[in-house]
């Protein structure tokens, strides 16, 4: 029950999903849709479980008064507030819930995302050093592509945008295809080992 049953469940589900792929029959499509629906429901349950651990971590900080415990109050407060608002007002357009989403979460999200502009610059300064032949090639390709995207590059030499495009569609495409095929083989073999129970650390592990 503890070891064998999970392995059996994993095997049965894995094999049936593979078989399902090749059957266009309505029954099989229905099965697929049902599984996806289930996935969303189980996911919702696991969200509750996950949120539970989040509360546990922050609650422990507050009760132990460990460093920065005051901030944990903000997390738990924000969580409870959002739940209350969501279940009281619903999630239609114009509700307080959506207002908070629009004016608090979206800006926070967009701002975190935009930090990339700064980090891309610092990474370029810090790590783009022509230490080896390979690093030099990476550096040159990056600079050509950057020049190719702005009007300045065109004025520097009117062929730069074309060269940038060429790098993107030829050598870059080759590297991507090579990686994608390799990754594909790795993925299938990992998935297979899991279905067959060769890799089993997440379902109890051990021999």
């Amino acid at each position, binding site marked *: 029950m503890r070891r064998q049953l999970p392995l059996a469940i994993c095997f049965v589900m894995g094999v049936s999903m593979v078989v399902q792929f090749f059957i266009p029959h309505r029954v099989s499509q229905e099965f697929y849709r049902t599984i996806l629906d*289930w996935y969303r429901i189980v996911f919702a349950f696991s969200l509750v479980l996950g949120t539970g651990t989040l509360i546990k971590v922050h609650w422990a900080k507050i009760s132990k008064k460990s460093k920065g415990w005051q901030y944990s109050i903000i997390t738990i407060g924000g969580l409870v507030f959002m739940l209350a608002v969501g*279940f009281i007002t619903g999630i239609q357009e114009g509700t307080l819930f959506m207002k908070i989403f629009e004016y608090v979460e979206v800006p926070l999200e967009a701002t975190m995302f935009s930090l990339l502009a700064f980090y891309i610059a610092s990474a370029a300064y810090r790590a783009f050093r022509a230490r080896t032949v390979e690093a030099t090639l990476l550096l040159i390709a990056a600079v050509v592509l950057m020049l190719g995207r702005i009007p300045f590059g065109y004025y520097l030499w009117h062929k730069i945008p074309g060269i940038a495009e060429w790098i*993107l569609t030829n050598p870059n495409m080759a590297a991507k295809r090579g990686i994608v095929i390799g990754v594909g083989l790795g993925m299938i073999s990992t998935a297979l080992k899991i279905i067959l129970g060769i890799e089993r650390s997440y379902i109890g592990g051990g021999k």
Partner: protein
Amino acid sequence: MNLSPDPWVWLAALLTLCIYSFLYKDNPFYKAAEHLFVGLSAGYFLVIYWYNAVYPDMVVPLFKQGKLLCIIPGLLGLFFFFRFIPKVGWVSRWSIAFYIGVGAGMSIPATMQMRILEQMKGTMQPFFSLETWHVFVENPSLASFGALIGIPLMIVGVMCTLSYFFFSREHKGVLGGMSRIGIIFLMIGFGASFGYTVMARISLLIGRVQFLMSDWLGVID
């Protein structure tokens, strides 16, 4: 200067600045914004999943339409909570096994299709084409030369990159040479992707700065 009278815009602007303060160093403003972000978003997803998955896909079919099959995902979900009872904690592995099995099974044929067969087909192009050769001879330029060598270079590149991922043999001799060339392709590809992405990332920052300067401060329109 045309300051926004909308308190929501002010809130959004101040939170934006709190996040940016992290670039200077970790500080109470960032910590507050970060903790608020985590709490609100964790709550947001619980609410959204209740309204968009649990209620319409489980509660309604199970309790209002009597579709008993919907009890299965409910049970699989509940099994996760057995983790809190040490004696029967292993029950939660059933749910885990279910999902890992589904995910692994689903990926096998899809990967074979998208990542292997389609990519192989894309690479099977004429190594040499008379058409691009004629264009090059009649009008020798950088562009026509690029078109001439583009495809053969791509084919060689795919082969060499693939040989870099050869694990069960030491990279010496022919394999060594091919994988060296493969690394060159990889590095050019990585550089190109990096350079290409810069634009999109700067756009994001421009978007935020436009929000601060236009919607909030009103110094630009």
